[in-house]
């Protein structure tokens, strides 16, 4: 069974590159650019791995992260968080909120795919 990865990201080019990379690696990829809609999608039909941008219009990536961790049904969903804000504090915040993995943009394609693979297994 193919692993489903959901990308929550509002930068269309990044979504495009992520979809390309992950589908090439055999994942089934969906994407969503709005935070609120993404949260609904997660609850309706939880993916196997979530790739989450920190800054989103509507609900931010951190909000989604916390909400997921507080919702029993999807509590253990593996989440890879991406952020373009280069501060250390963002990584710490994310860890505290229960992120599985955390990467800073720009990222290395290989590392990113590797991270998703690890989360999927």
């Amino acid at each position: 069974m193919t692993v489903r990865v959901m990308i929550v990201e509002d930068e269309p080019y990044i979504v495009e590159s992520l979809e390309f990379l992950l589908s090439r690696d055999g994942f089934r990829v969906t994407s969503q650019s709005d935070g609120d809609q993404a949260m609904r999608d997660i609850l309706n039909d939880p993916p196997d791995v979530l790739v989450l941008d920190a800054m989103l219009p509507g609900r931010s990536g951190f909000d989604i992260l916390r909400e997921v961790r507080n919702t029993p049904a999807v509590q253990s969903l593996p989440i890879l968080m991406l952020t373009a804000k280069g501060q250390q504090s963002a990584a710490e915040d994310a860890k505290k909120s229960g992120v599985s993995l955390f990467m800073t943009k720009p990222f290395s394609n290989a590392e990113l795919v590797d991270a998703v693979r690890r989360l999927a297994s």
Partner: protein
Amino acid sequence: MISANLIVFISLFYVALLFGVAWYGDRQAKQGGGAWLRSPITYTLSLSVYCTGWTFYGAVGSAVRNGLEFATIYLGPTLVFIGWWWFIRKVVRIGRNHRITSIADMLSSRFGKSNTVAVVATIAAVIAATPYIALQLQSVTLSFEAIVGGSERLDTTVAFWAATGMAAFTILFGTRSLDENERHYGVVAAIAAEAVIKLIALIAVGLFAIYGISGGLQDVVDNAARALPSLQEISPPRWVTLLFLAGAAIICLPRQFHVTVVENSSERHVATASWLFPCYLFLTSIFVLPIAIAGTSTMPAGSNPDLFVLTLPLSNDNDALAIFAFIGGFSSATSMVIVSTIALSTMVSNHIVAPLSMWFLSQQGTGRSGDVLRVLLNTRRISIGLILTLGFVYFRFTGGSDALASIGLIAFCGVAQFLPSLVAGVTWQGATRSGALAGLIGGFLVWCYTLLLPSFEGTLIMSADAVAHGPFGIEMLKPQGLFGAQDIDPLVHATVWSIGLNTVLLILVSLATRQSILERLQSALFVNAFRSEPAYAMGLVQRSAASEDLFILAQRILGAGTAKTMFDSAAREQGKLTGLPDATPNFISRLEQELAGSVGAASAHAMVNQTSGGGTISLDALMEIADEAARLMATTKALELKSQEAERTAAQLRAANQRLRLLDSQKDEFLSQVSHELRTPMASIRSFAEILESTPELDDASRGRFAGIIQSESVRLTRLLNDILDLKFLEDDAQRIPSHAIDAERSVDKALEVTEGTLADSPARIVQGRRCGQAQVYANSDRLAQVFINLLSNAIQHNASDTPVITVETRKDTNTYFVEISDNGSGVSATDRDRIFEKMVRGEKSRGVGLGLPISRQIVRSFGGDIELIDRDGPGATFRVTLPLHTPDEAP
């Protein structure tokens, strides 16, 4: 035996002589001559009013009974004049500066010109001094009877005529006028003459005792131990107490204060007196022991040692010397009574009658010239009569009893109650009116209770039983053994309790109460007497009055002539040839000072204030004369101000710090934003570059698309960097944008053209509303176009609507050009409204470069205009650019 008639005749002759001297002295003074009257010698001799009939006769008696103890009465003042002459000089300086008329006036003036203080002090002085006057009458009577060998019982007629004679003298020479600062040259001349006579008389008797009776000095010394066994006995507590009381008396006794301070004509005289007066006292005391020794050796047992001075020559048939001795004693008594009654009557009339008569006369409506003067002079005459009558009555009913014998020291202890307030008054600025009153009243009551009342031995108020066992049998309250004190000499006991309580109350109440402004002023002037000018010269008190009213007031108190002289001289000083002087604050204060010399500080202050209204005291001037304490106060105040200032500075710093922290967090946010804005396109670029590199099998279409993305994201990066640099440039060098008179409408046109060019495959469209067509502004057309392009592209990019519609409208009024760019998007949230013009801040729900608005605002502001987000009905946001219109004749 000497006949009574001879003695009466000689006494009358002597009194006539005194009248002559006094009259001569007054006349000389009035004619401006009589330098001897103002000489330090006369001043010092007048101080000898200290040596009364009690000391003249009684010292010998005291030596017989208590040995050397009599010497303390001379040693106390000697120590004060030698060791504390600076204190006396200060009191004298204050007395002259403030025209002090009595010790009561001194205390009153110091404690805020309080009439209450003056009244309390006056009552205390009268109570303490009246028995003392009676003592003098007794000494005259006793000596008269001794010399004429009269009956055993005291003949009161002698005392009566003596009192009458002294009253006549005092009224005649002591109440001639109220002006001249209470100086009575005639009286001073007379008492100086008496001082010489009583000294010579005592020396004569002393020499007679040594060489006429005892057989030389050696004989006197040899006999000393046997004749006066008490010579060996010295009671330290009593010695200390007596030294203290005598020292206090030399300045606190009303008559001593009068001759030392009020009658003083030059401060320098104090310097002379500081050695000459001790010499006088030394000469007075040196013959006491030889007389006492000769008396006890040769006089029959049971003879009164208090009269040895008189009876020694008598029993040795030296009538001439006996008569001389009698005159000496008479001199001592009369000079004391005369000066005492002058001092006391001054107090009574200034502090008790003057306030009453002021009230009474003010009830009568307008006063006449000199009416207050007349009332006061008459009061003074009547008080002299009354005080002497009081003394006489006192003598009549207690005469001959032991009550009188000890009254000298009792009086000393009574007037010593003035000492704490006096010393504190001139050395401690913190002493307050309430403190002085509490001390005076407390000390005086204790003195009455522990010393005065018991001295009546049960005949006045307190029964003998109450004195012996305490009132109602309460031992704790035994007058001569308060709170269990036992076997203490009554004088020591009373002195310790009264002075102790007085001092403690003065200090504690002073610390607990606050001074009025006038008190503070007076305290500063008193304590800094040597460092400050007379108060009137400094314009401390600001008052205004009509010169006419002041003149009327002055006439009422000083009399027409004196008032006119004073006002004329003041007018001349002000440069006026005719008419009254201007009623400047200085003049009013000087007038008050002048009146104080006649009626006392409290009354003068009240009278002048009645005419001028309360007035205010200049705090600045007050501060100037303040001493260390007040300076300290000022410093404290300044420090307070400084600390307030420091607090303000700290608040400013806090605000600045907060602003800095805000700026810092804005900077952090800016960096974070920049980071985000840079990293996002870089992420795409890197990701696609890696894809291109690692995917050789990629089809051409994808390859081309990915390369295109890399290219466009690179452009986005470049634009971002340019914006950052541009903003930096604008912030630093906004003034350097080259500007000209341009048509702003053309810049709008250009912006529209450029923006529409980018909309080829976009659903968005731009609608032109009303345009004003032409608007001259002073600006840079390219920069202005950049602003409009920014606003237009913001409106398009951040528009969530499916069919974005941007509306552009322009208009102008007389001075200003307006451009409004509205969109049909979701608008700007309330929280964003204030922030969107900050660097790198974007709306929470929007994307894109956050520098457009800050750059645009910076540009427009450099042209003297502004950009704002305005409220509009309906959805969407409206940005309004305003620019001042440029009129060609106006310089840029």
